[in-house]
């Protein structure tokens, strides 16, 4: 995936980056069974994330969370026609190879699973399949992009139904991008060095005033209004984990989230979409959490 400048600023070139562009404006939904995958597709999901437990269950049940059984992933691939993603543990290159062999469409190197490598994330450039990675700030996003991530999502705080951390990460990334504009080249060099990011990538972001890959939000999205809020803040699409299948009526919740993500600028439509919805998932206060998944990875 060689880099080449084109009219879209400094977007790197390659089919993985292109698939990410096709997902824009869409909702990617966590599913744990083929039946849930079908519900997601019918509701208008642009992709599904195949996993064994949604983040809120990982949170409540504890234990080490790992890549899903290929049997489940294959069954979900057979059930739907939209792209299928699946998660690996941070740094777990063998899990990544297994998912590549299954020919899924995207790998999420995810903090929701228990990290496998205390030193390094996966070298994503070695794979033909594209990766999405989480980030809480600009430096982390650019380190992942430098490793080959074709898409970035905020980490938020998965499995909480509480949107504050996703808002924090998206706003922080945008604020840091804006702050690069004011830096001299010496300051930019220092910033890049501190963040362990190549100066070329920092320079691209300074010039384009955006990340050089498609940027979604994830972590704590529970209601259509949450999705609309994040789209308004500049997200290019939304991941919803526990928010759908932990709600009282997954079909309606899924449909409402898809509608709100597209019609986020239309307040009348949002009011319609939000009216009389089933109970969303129960939320958690961030201060009460035993495990902060967003702190995993670096």
């Amino acid at each position, binding site marked *: 995936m060689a880099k080449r400048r084109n009219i879209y600023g400094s977007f790197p070139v390659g089919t993985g980056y292109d698939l990410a*562009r096709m997902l824009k404006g869409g909702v990617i939904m966590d599913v744990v069974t083929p039946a849930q995958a079908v519900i997601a597709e019918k509701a208008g999901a642009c992709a599904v994330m195949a996993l064994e437990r949604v983040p809120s269950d990982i949170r409540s049940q504890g234990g080490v969370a790992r890549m899903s059984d290929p049997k489940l992933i294959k069954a979900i691939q057979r059930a739907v026609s*939209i792209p299928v993603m699946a998660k690996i543990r941070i740094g777990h290159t063998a899990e990544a190879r297994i998912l590549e062999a299954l*020919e899924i469409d995207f790998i999420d190197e995810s903090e929701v699973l228990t990290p496998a490598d205390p030193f390094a994330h996966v070298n994503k450039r070695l794979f033909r399949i594209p990766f999405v990675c989480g980030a809480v700030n600009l430096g982390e996003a650019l380190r992942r992009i430098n490793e080959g991530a074709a898409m970035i999502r905020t980490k938020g705080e998965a499995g909480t139904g509480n949107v504050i951390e996703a808002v924090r990460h998206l706003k922080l990334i945008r604020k840091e991008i804006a702050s690069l504009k004011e830096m001299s080249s010496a300051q930019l060099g220092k910033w890049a060095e501190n963040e362990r990011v190549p100066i070329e990538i920092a320079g691209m972001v300074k010039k384009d005033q955006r990340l050089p890959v498609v940027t979604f939000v994830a972590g704590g999205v529970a209601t259509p209004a949450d999705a609309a809020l994040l789209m308004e803040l500049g997200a290019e699409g939304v991941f919803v984990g526990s928010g759908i299948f932990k709600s009282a009526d997954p079909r309606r919740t899924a449909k409402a989230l898809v509608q709100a993500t597209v*019609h986020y600028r239309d307040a009348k439509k949002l009011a319609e979409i939000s009216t009389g919805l089933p109970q969303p998932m129960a939320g958690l206060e961030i201060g009460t959490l035993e495990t902060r998944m967003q702190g995993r990875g670096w």
Partner: protein
Amino acid sequence: MTVGVLAFHGDFAEHLEVLRNLKVKCIEVLSLDDLKKVSHLIIPGGESTVIGKFLESTGVGAAIKKRVNKRSLAIYGTCAGAILLARTVKGKNPPKSLKLMNITIERNAYGSQMQSFQADIGVKGLAKPLPATFIRAPIILDHGSAEILAEYGGHPVLVREGRILAGTFHPEVRGQEQIHRIFLTM
């Protein structure tokens, strides 16, 4: 001339960028009111199942069909857009298409993302081969009476029928203007 890009989902921003570079007046189309303002419409790449749902829920799909019947709208569909134009869609869980072109198309016909690829294609009317990007692309199995403007691997990849153009690849992701230029003359 105003060109609309259907902006529910997918790579509509990339199409708008190409149109801006061509100095053409262009708008996002999300509603019936938006559709009224355009003479040309691009249906972008993305998931055809998703775009199809919004065409239905907003009524924009039915309005597009009416405009085409009155011959007051030209359309260019890329990838998912081409699928939504086809009379017959094969493959798993097909979307509800607009059936505006007498072609048969199969979704994700090459396979998953691992089979996405780039290849040079010869396009009728263009002097040089065009490097084309195919992302989880469909295959046009039967082009009916549509004119073939480009082929790859024994299948048509760009076809035209009247004022409707359908391509299975994405010139917009590389900022290529050639196919858009052809569309703007339609």
